């Protein structure tokens, strides 16, 4: 069940969470945690606007809030404060920071920017995760589950379901997994599947799929 103070903003495709500005930051954090945990899995990856009325918070506090969201598979769009809050500055800084991490193949390097959600759970059949930026999943994607990202996808586990990177047409997006054996793999408008007949021998290697010369290729990679 959603709490009353959580609004789903369909027009902008996100969620607005209102917090009580009359309390101290610690209580606010507790509120945010409770509210975020009441959000069901179907909204995972959604962009969240936190409305804190006229409360002022510090940059570090804003980061703490972002962290709470990230732990629950949500992404911070902005913190709206009627006071002269640091929210815009936080947002700007987010964009300017160094890439989160890099994936290296033999001759290429792919970076994950801060437009990334971190999801700490397994995705089971029937569950789906959609996010306009990058997605990093600390867990497995089981057959029948779907992950769709506007950017790239990294699975710190086994990818056995369907993954679609660059869903809005970004053909530089990649799909990487510790164990890459998807039912189907899509990058931008390319769709690939494992060949019929014998199942592919499972390797111990971490693999990455990306588009090279108009074809989806798979290579080993290192983080």
């Amino acid at each position, binding site marked *: 069940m959603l709490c009353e103070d959580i609004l789903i903003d369909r027009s902008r495709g996100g969620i607005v969470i209102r917090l009580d500005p009359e309390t101290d930051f610690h209580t606010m954090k507790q509120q945010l945690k409770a509210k975020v945990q009441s959000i069901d899995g179907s909204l995972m990856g959604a962009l969240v606007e936190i409305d804190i009325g006229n409360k002022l918070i510090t940059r570090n506090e804003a980061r703490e809030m972002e962290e709470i969201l990230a732990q629950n598979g949500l992404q911070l769009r902005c913190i709206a404060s009627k006071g002269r809050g640091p929210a815009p500055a936080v947002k700007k800084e987010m964009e300017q920071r160094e890439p989160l991490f890099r994936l290296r193949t033999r001759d290429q390097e792919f970076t994950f920017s801060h437009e990334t959600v971190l999801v700490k759970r397994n995705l089971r*059949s*029937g*569950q*789906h995760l959609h996010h306009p930026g990058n997605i990093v999943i600390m867990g497995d994607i089981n*057959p*029948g589950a*779907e992950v769709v990202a506007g950017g790239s996808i990294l699975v710190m586990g086994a990818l056995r379901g369907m993954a679609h990177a660059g869903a809005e047409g970004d053909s530089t997006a990649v799909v990487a997994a510790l164990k890459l054996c998807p*039912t*189907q793999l899509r990058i931008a408008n390319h*769709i690939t*599947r*494992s060949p*019929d007949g014998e199942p592919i021998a499972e390797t111990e290697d971490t693999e990455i799929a990306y588009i090279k010369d108009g074809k989806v290729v798979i290579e080993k990679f290192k983080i």
Partner: protein
Amino acid sequence: MSGKVLVITSGKGGVGKTTTTANLGTALAMMGYKVVLVDTDIGLRNLDVVMGLENRIVFDIVDVVNENCKLKQAMIKDKRFDGLYLLPAAQTKEKTAVSPHQMRSLSAELKKEFDYVLIDCPAGIEQGFKNAIAGADEALVVATPEVSSVRDADRIIGLLEAAGLAISRLIINRIRPKMVRRGDMMDIDDIIDILAIKLIGVVPEDEVIVVSTNRGEPAVIDYTSKAGEAYRRIARRLVGEEVPFMVLDYNEGLFDRFRRMLKLAAR
């Protein structure tokens, strides 16, 4: 061309609706008919894995009724037989994503293209069931020789009658001749007697079904499989041929023979 829409249903789960749909569809395609299998079990799709086509799915039945794609784009061509197609269910949606009205127009659309439209119905009697039977001309009710399955089949037959489906025929699945002979399983006559419905086929329990499901290949393509043989016969009856029922008899063991003699003597 106007084909026939058959819904495969049972009420109870796990009695073999999906296996039956996959095998009958494949058997009909082997006979040269144009067939489409429609999975209406939205949220719990399985027909795709039984057919071995799970990695080809791009669009599904919900995309079709919502007009996110054309019907042709969502239909997956079978990898073994020409003229056999699968319209998969959506996995990440709910049963309410499709309405009976939409199913009726979808069935009507498919009937124009195909000789047989086989609809795999979800277990239960809720929305999914109502969707599945909405556009059907005939029903095939699958039951196993167990009390729970026969009871649910009876309920389903009542609902089919109430919905005005003219023809319902029964498939008895997973019968074990040895247990029937021992008197520990209801036989065909018992079930027909209770359900008062026309029988179209009896499928014996067969380990090949498990193996073929593992591989994603329907058992009808395996000519050594007893269940496969039973399904091929049902397919021929569906198209109107007169086919004798399979003789379901295992070699009698010494003990069986001894018991039968005693039984005869006691009469």
